[in-house]
Every structure is written in C-alpha cells, then in structure tokens.
C-alpha cells in the first residue's frame, strides 16, 4: 500500500506565551543549546496541540472540526509546513497548497496579472506553469476585465476570488482549506465547492477545517474533532458531528445552568424575596415576557436527571424526523408526595411553544411518589422540521405550584436532508394524477444517526 498523504504521530505544538521576558536568555539558549522551548518555565508556554495522531490516506477528504481555539488552525499550519511541531512527527507526502489566507503576498500596487504570476511562483509553480494556467485562473476568478488594474483597486470579494483561483490552480497533491469558502457570493461559493469536488474525483487529498458541519458531513470521509488541542473524537463524519453537536448542546446546558445559578445567587443576596414562581404547567404557561431559561420550585419533588433516548434506548441529542424520542426523567421525593403532575413543553429556538402537555391534562389521577421514580414520555414519529428545540420539564401540584420547574435546561437538535420550513412536519405524501406528471426525487435515505455505533 502507498504511504498515507498525511501522517501525524503524537503531534504537539507549544507556543511561547510571554515574548518579552528573558529574551536574551532565550535567544542565547536558542543559539547555543538548540533548545528554545525547554529552557522556558511551563507557565510561559501555551500548548495549542497535544498528542494528536491521525493518518489521511491518499485521495481522501479529511475534516477537522472543533470550537474556536481548539487548535484547528495550528494543525493546518503544521501540515502546511509553516510551523514545525514541538513534539511528534508530521509527514506530508506530495505538493501542498494551503488555502489559509487567500491572496497573502499580493502586492497592492501592482496589477492582478503580475500578482497572479508572483503568487503562483510563491505557491510553488514555475513561471511556465503559471503562464499556461493564467487564462484559466483569471476565468475562474471572473476578473478578465480587471486583471490589469492594480490589486489595491479590487473589492475584497475580487481579492479573495483571485487568491482562491491561484491557490486552487497550483494543482496540489494535498489541498488544505481553512474556512475560506465564504469568499464570495452564492455562485462563487458553489463554483469553489465544485472545484473541490473535482479535485476529490481526481484523487487529491483534502484537509478541511471548517465550522460548517453540513459540509463536513457531505464531503469528508473521516473527521477529527479537536477539543483544547487534543483529539476528542475521530472517525465517521456523521457520528463525530453528532458527538460534537451533543457536546456543544451540553456546553450550552452548562452555560444556562451556571447562568441560572448566578441569577439565583443575585436573588439570594437581595433583601426582597424572590418573585413568586409562575404557577403554571408547561402545558399551560403563557409566555409573558418571552422565553427565559431557568429553574425554580420548592424541590419537594426534585428532577434529578434528564436523558433523551432514541428507539434503542441510547442517549442522543440529535435526531431525525420520524424517529421515536423518549424523554426519561428521574425524579426524587425526600418525603412522600400525593399531589404531583408531570409536564413537558417543547419550544423552538426562538421560544415559540411547539407543544405542551402534562399528566393532569391527559387525565391521569391518584399520583403518588415516594423516594426515587422515573417518568418516561415517548414522542413517537418525531414530527418536527430541522432545528434546535428546547425542552421544559416540570413537576408541580395540580394547582400549578411548582416543585421543580426546568425551563429550557435541555435541548435537542433535529437534522433532516429535506430543508422544509416551519416547525411541524406532518406525515405526508404527494400524489399527482391526470395529465400531471412529476419525477420523484432521487431516493435519499433520511439521515440515519442511529445506525452508527456510539463510542
């Protein structure tokens, strides 16, 4: 088998954090002992990447995702050879072209024509190769009219287009793309994606850093998720993106919770008693003053854990329409309680109530809870369009006095290949009869998040 296009083994990158301290010492040691970093105290360094290993087989497309500051761009610079790893090894086989900053090295005073030839040579082409590809580059950038004008007169879109056109025509074996597809209008982005797809077909290796998870799912064969410079997950795009979204949703949960705790602290310090909690069930609560996540109640009944389960009983945060989603809520009553109603509300990300119900509305009676219990609500055939949904959960008295009310503390995401709009997606079927005829859409399976093994 041929060696992989990119092989990273236990790669770490440590940056110096304080540039101005001990400059003489570090310079001297750099010169004399070849150890620029080892002489620094640990608090003066910043580890941007730590122990990252992966291989990208020739001809495959590899995605890197992660939050801001997770080390994605550092990784790209290492692969591009712009910086060197502090530890570990990184081997790239073949000519690399990096779409990291488009048009880096353009000189504003000289014409687009001259900049194309200089930029091409900078990116590793020979003068002849640039000449051969020149017309193609200009046509791709759609700048035929302006190619002899100085680059300083270009709009930022024109500048980026020219930069992209040069970089993509370097004909690299390995193409590195850093979040640069937002370089123009819709049509140009389309063109860039087509060009990238063409390079994929021609067996080029592509490494792709982006926040566009849809693109990652669509284009990548393999995905690496970086978190704080370490590998959080790696593997099948759908599974990793799912795990990443779950993590991001969890982070939002945590932020909401800490925000709520801080708010509670504020209320506790104030001398005025906390405002009376809304005495409604999620099924009935009017949304006066908008949707503000929070938690309140006397905690005679406490909601201790909430899980969202798929049909196989596995915990997930991303679902597809038509799936069965089960809300499993663990509750606890320190003292036996005989008057308890459980309610559930679903809200869109904008705070619009999608649905609400509770056990009282649906006619359950004779409730009793002592010690631990679990409430399960199965939502069969999830009839929602793509989007993020927030969940209200509550345990309260029949008169509405809350024991424990969790507003917007949990969320899930619905993903769909069909980008229909609204909130509610009824089960539906089209039919065309008479002289009317439409070709059915290409058979497309709904995203199947459930089939992948969960790590």
């Amino acid at each position, binding site marked *: 088998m041929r060696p992989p296009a990119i092989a990273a083994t236990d790669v770490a990158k440590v940056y110096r954090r304080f540039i101005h301290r001990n400059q003489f010492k570090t310079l001297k040691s*750099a010169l004399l002992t070849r150890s620029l970093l080892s002489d620094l105290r640990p608090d003066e360094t910043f580890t941007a990447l730590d122990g990252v290993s992966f291989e990208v087989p020739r001809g495959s497309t590899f995605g890197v995702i992660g939050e801001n500051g997770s080390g994605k761009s550092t990784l790209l*610079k290492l692969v591009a050879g*712009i910086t060197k790893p502090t530890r570990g090894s990184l081997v790239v086989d073949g000519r690399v072209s990096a779409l990291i900053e488009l048009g*880096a090295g353009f*000189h504003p005073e000289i014409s687009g024509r*001259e900049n194309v030839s200089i930029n091409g040579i900078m990116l590793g082409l020979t*003068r002849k190769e640039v000449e051969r590809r020149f017309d193609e580059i200009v046509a791709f950038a759609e700048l035929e009219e302006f190619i002899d004008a100085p680059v300083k007169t270009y709009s930022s879109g024109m500048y980026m287009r020219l930069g992209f056109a040069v970089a993509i025509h370097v004909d690299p074996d390995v193409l590195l793309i850093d979040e640069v597809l937002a370089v123009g209008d819709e049509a140009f982005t389309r063109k860039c994606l087509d060009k990238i797809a063409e390079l994929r077909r021609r067996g080029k290796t592509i490494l792709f850093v982006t926040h566009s998870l849809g693109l990652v799912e669509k284009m990548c064969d393999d995905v690496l998720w970086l978190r704080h410079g370490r590998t959080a997950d790696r593997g099948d795009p759908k599974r990793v993106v799912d795990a990443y979204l779950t993590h991001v949703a969890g982070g939002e949960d945590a932020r909401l919770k800490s925000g709520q705790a801080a708010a509670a602290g504020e209320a506790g310090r104030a001398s005025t008693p906390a405002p009376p909690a809304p005495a409604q069930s999620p099924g009935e609560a009017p949304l006066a003053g908008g949707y503000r996540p929070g938690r309140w109640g006397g905690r005679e009944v406490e909601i201790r854990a909430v899980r969202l389960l798929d049909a196989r009983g596995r915990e997930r945060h991303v679902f597809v329409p038509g799936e069965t989603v089960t809300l499993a809520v663990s509750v606890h009553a320190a003292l036996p309680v005989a008057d308890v109603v459980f309610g559930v509300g679903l809200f869109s990300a904008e705070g619009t109530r999608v649905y609400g119900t509770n056990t009282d509305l649906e006619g359950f009676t004779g409730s009793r809870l002592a010690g631990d219990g679990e409430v399960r609500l199965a939502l069969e055939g999830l009839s929602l369009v793509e989007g993020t949904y927030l969940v209200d959960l509550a345990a309260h008295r029949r008169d509405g006095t809350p024991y424990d009310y969790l507003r917007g503390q949990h969320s899930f995401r619905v993903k769909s290949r069909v980008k229909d709009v609204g909130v509610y997606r009824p089960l539906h079927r089209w039919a065309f009869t008479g002289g009317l005829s439409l070709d059915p859409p290409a058979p497309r399976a709904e995203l199947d998040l459930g089939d992948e093994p969960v790590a």
Partner: protein
Amino acid sequence: MIAAIRSLVRYRALVRSLVSRELKARYRGSVLGFFWSFVNPLLLLLTYTLVFTVILPGRQSEAMQPYFLFFFTGILPWTWFSASLAESSGVLISSGNLIKKVLFPAEVLPAVTVIANLVHFLLGLPILLVFLAWKGKLGWTALLLPLPLLVQLVLCLGLALFLSAITVHFRDVQSILGHVLHLWFFATPVLYHYGDIHGTLRQVLRMNPMTHVLVSYQQILFHGHFGHWRGLGLAFLVGVAMFAVGAFLFDRLRDTFPEEV
C-alpha cells in the same frame, strides 16, 4: 551556508519576480517612475556638491579632484549598502503575512532587498560612467568593477540575513540601525580620501570591510589604477564570514519567525 546559497539558487525564479515586483511597486504612481533611479543619485550628488564646494570648500586634497565625481563614485555603492541594510532589517516583519500564512522560504526576503538595491545601483552606474568618461577618468581598470561588486554583494547578503533575523526578536535593532549606518558612513571613505588618513584613525578605518570595498571602487573607477588587492581580499573573507554567520543565525531562528513576526 551552503544550504543558504542552494536555497537562493533554487528559488531564483521567486527572487527574480519579487525583485521586479519591488522595482515596479516602488515608483508606481509617481510621475517620473523608473527615472527616479537616475534622478535620486543626481539629486544626492547635487546636495553634497553644494555642501562641500560652496558651504565647506577647500578641504579636498588633490587626489579627490574633481571632488563631485570622487564623491559620486563612493556614494552610489554606499547607498546600495545602507539601503539594503536598512530595508532588510524590517523585511521579515513587514512581510509577516507571507511567513505566517504561506509556506515561504523566508531567506528570499532579505536577499530580495539586497538585490533590488543592487539593481538601483546598476541603474545609477551608467550616469557615473558617463561623468567619468567626460572628465577623462575612465580607464581599463573599470573592467575590474565586478570584483568589489561581488565582495559587497556577499557582505550585504550576510548582514541582511543577520539583521532581518535578529530584528524579528529585537525590534530595537530597527531603531539603532539608522544611527549605526550614519556613523558607519563617516567611518567609510566616501567623503574623504583613505590615502589622506594617517595614524590611529587609519588603523580604525582598516577594520571596516566597507573601507576596502569603497577604496577599490575609487581606485578602479576614479583613479584608474588598482593596487588594493590585499584589502579587497580581506574584505571578501570578512564578507564570507559574515554570510556564514548570517545564514547560520537565520537558519537557527527560522522556526521562530511564524510565531514572532
């Protein structure tokens, strides 16, 4: 050092296109354009001629007559030298974008400043030769011109590599350099004749490699004889040593550039 030379040879196409970009961009937008390469030394000549023949006359020995031509012979190579150094010290920082975002052989940048200034020097040279011919100073020794030129090139490249690399870590260099170059100018026989200097001062001037380069230019072009072989040879050795030191330092600090510029 060998690696540095090899790298510059390997990227000669890049160096060439960057030099031409540098030259094109420099006068783009000005009325006289490329003509400035000729006008600049002429104006410089005019200024100094005014100073040393009208304001401070009578201090020039016989060996420097006509003085304006003697001075012109010296100031052209000196301008190449000092402009190369001044520009190269900041070149890595001002091209930070390239170093941080593109896989780019950084040593090309100081080399480009030196070579772009060499081209300016070569553009000014015909004017000097015309004046020399007019005053009947031009002799066969002018054919030796490539010798001091080569020595100066090596010295400039070495210093440019050294300065550009060190300035990334110590921006102070940029501020100090202007003053150092000023002092260096007066410590190099451009305004005066090396042969007129005696005693300790001459010993000091001998330590300066640019002294020997300048004396060689003056002998070859202005005096029409050349006997400064030893001095020029020593200057060449110093230049080679400087190049080795510059290349070594540049290479050692290379990996820190993307993080520091």
